């Protein structure tokens, strides 16, 4: 199990952890930076200052309690729905690929894609506003057309690691995916 430091597309520090459970099972997890105390206190003080200003204007103390309530609700919603702590990829050869995002409140959302549906894992380039970013994605097989791609599933969307991290993940994935191809080829030869 190794952990290496990389940067995201916007410059934030990321950590990539690669764990090998067995010869055909590997887990790759990208850990995003935690919620900064600085930004949290800045937002809270801004909201409370605005509420205090409103209170001075209209002399209604409900504004202050509403501001506290809103801040709490906003923080809970942010931690539960928006802030992603870790995104991981579990590749189990001959079973499938599992993509997990875990939020700061502990919620985990998983998607499992069976190996028969996975055509390939590639790194794509995209032009976003004024930047060119790279992203890793899984190409899903079109059931009717063996050469066609029915869907593209992008990975690591909130952490957005840079190309060096993506190349590591890509190589790890392909070591396991190529085993499948080798197995199917040797079956074909027989």
């Amino acid at each position, binding site marked *: 199990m190794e952990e290496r430091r990389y940067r995201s597309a916007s410059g934030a520090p990321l950590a990539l952890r690669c764990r090998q*459970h*067995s*010869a*055909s*099972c590997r*887990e790759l997890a990208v850990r995003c930076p935690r919620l900064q105390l600085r930004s949290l206190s800045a937002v809270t003080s801004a909201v409370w200052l605005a509420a205090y200003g409103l209170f001075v204007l209209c002399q209604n103390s409900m504004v202050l309690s509403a501001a506290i309530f809103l801040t709490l609700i906003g923080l809970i919603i942010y931690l539960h*729905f928006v802030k992603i702590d870790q995104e991981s990829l*579990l590749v*189990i*050869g*001959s*079973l499938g690929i*599992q993509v*997990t995002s875990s939020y700061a409140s502990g*919620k985990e959302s*998983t*998607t*499992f894609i*069976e*190996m*028969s*549906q996975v055509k390939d894992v590639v790194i794509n380039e995209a032009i976003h506003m004024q930047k060119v970013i790279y992203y890793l994605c899984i190409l899903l097989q079109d*059931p009717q057309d063996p050469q066609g791609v029915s869907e593209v599933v992008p990975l690591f969307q909130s952490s957005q690691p840079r190309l060096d991290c993506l190349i590591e993940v890509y190589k790890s994935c392909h070591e396991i995916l190529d085993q499948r191809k080798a*197995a199917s080829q040797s*079956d074909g030869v027989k």
Partner: protein
Amino acid sequence: MVLKVFFPSCCSSAESGILIGRWIPEQSSAVILAVVHFPFIPVQVKQYLREVQQVTKVSVSVLGSWNNSKQEKEESLSEFLEDLGTIFSHEPWIQISKEGDSKFWNCSTLQKQPDNHREEEIILVYYDQRKVMLSHLHPPSDTADLGAEDASKLSAIFNTVASSKVLFMTDRYDDGPIKMTHWQSDGIEASIIVELMKQASVPACMLLTFLLSLVSGVCNSRVLKFWPLSFLWSKLSTCEQLGHRLQHLQVISSSKKAQNQTQLMRKANIFVSLLIDVALGILLMSWLYRKNQIGHLADTLIPVADHVAEELQDLLQWLMGAPAGLKMNRALDQVLGRFFLYHIHLWISYIHLMSPFIEMILWYVGLSACLGLTVALCILSDIIALLTFHIYCFYVYGARLYCLKIYGLSSLWRLFRGKKWNVLRQRVDSCSYDLDQLFIGTLLFTILLFLLPTTALYYLVFTLLCLLVVIVQGLIHLLVDLIDSLPLYSIILRFCRSYRLAAGVKFRVLEQQDGKPLRLLMQLHPCRHPSLVLPLSMGTGELKQESRKLVTQESMGTGEQKTGHSSVGKRKIQLLKKQCLCACFYCLCLFCD
């Protein structure tokens, strides 16, 4: 290829024995369904498996051996288990052994064919047999080909477990030749209430079907189809709602079983919605008939109607003066104003005539709340419609007048320009008019044009009033539709037994040890998307929408504008309702994750 063994977690503490299940060669995976314990006679085991195969059409066979040694490793038992491999010939023969309370098991395969030299990796996947059996992730088993190429691999496994129900019917208390361990081996899981209900449901359904056929026979009889009565039934929303509920009851009490999952869910949703409806209705009734609430209601009804009439009279007096500073045509204003005031006077007389009977009528009508809260709400909406009938009449008069005026104006405007509407060709053609035609036409045009503001104002005011009433009625109908089509059974299932509506699986990697096979835990993932659950109920909502559209189209003897308003309004309300339902369900799912 990697060998995958799906092992049920309930068999982790079973005694030593042999493993039976299904071997899927294309995926190189073994789905273990149960463990058969010693002593057994191999011939009897094979016979039993043949019988099971005939019933379930799943190729169940002996896959390997299971060794659970509580003390130190017993050499003789492991040799014995290897020898079993020769009696039950299966390729490959899987041997799983567990020592004491160790978490890490040994798993190896015996290959008979010597040309398989490579060391196959084995993955052990634990699954919860009960949840996998009850979930509906596998495709419907109406097709007999279980080895279809395009079926997803995991669904084949789910299908295997779900089809092998008969295997799970024998428990350890049965005196059979074979002793097995599976998820029901400690005793078949059943609920007395459910069994009793199943037994009672057959005669209940037959009785219900008989009663419903009687009722629908009476409803469809020709006596009730004469013109005034049929017009009345189509206008009252209570009759529509009753017809709707009758349809629901017919769906539930039909004797043929549900074909597939969606039909079963629809039936269950309708049943739960009917139950909740009747319960809420009885609650409402118990509140109404206590402490003379009906008397209070009847007492407040007449003063409210009087108050509304007084407000209308004030409004008309305002219109007859100079409303909002506009200058109206005095004569027309007076005529229209007096005409409407006389109507209000007639209406008030009717209400006062009926006032002694109101309490009795309300008392008997309130009894019908036992049919359901939706029926009570529909009756309320109908009562509102009846009490504000005069507003509706005013709207109709105003709309008709305005409509005639606009027709006349447009036709005379064409005459003014020297054109004519060609009915045959459906277009505007030029036409040469005589001088007297032109003279009278221009005169009439001027008259109508200058009377337009008055009529337009009356039309506007009464349309707004009628719109208010329609909005109130629309809100009540929205509530009724919500109760009708909310899929309560699916929502309850999603929160209590989420594995039945599972959308997928997720794997968790358990603790590993070098040299031992990879251990994974397969769990069911509850569905998050509301679209899986909501369309199961929307079928009933759509029926109602269609019938409503028909009603609004039929009853149009009045102005075209009325259809436009109410049907557009109702369609918008339906759309809003669907959006609200989707949003609510999604929020519920997200928060209660």
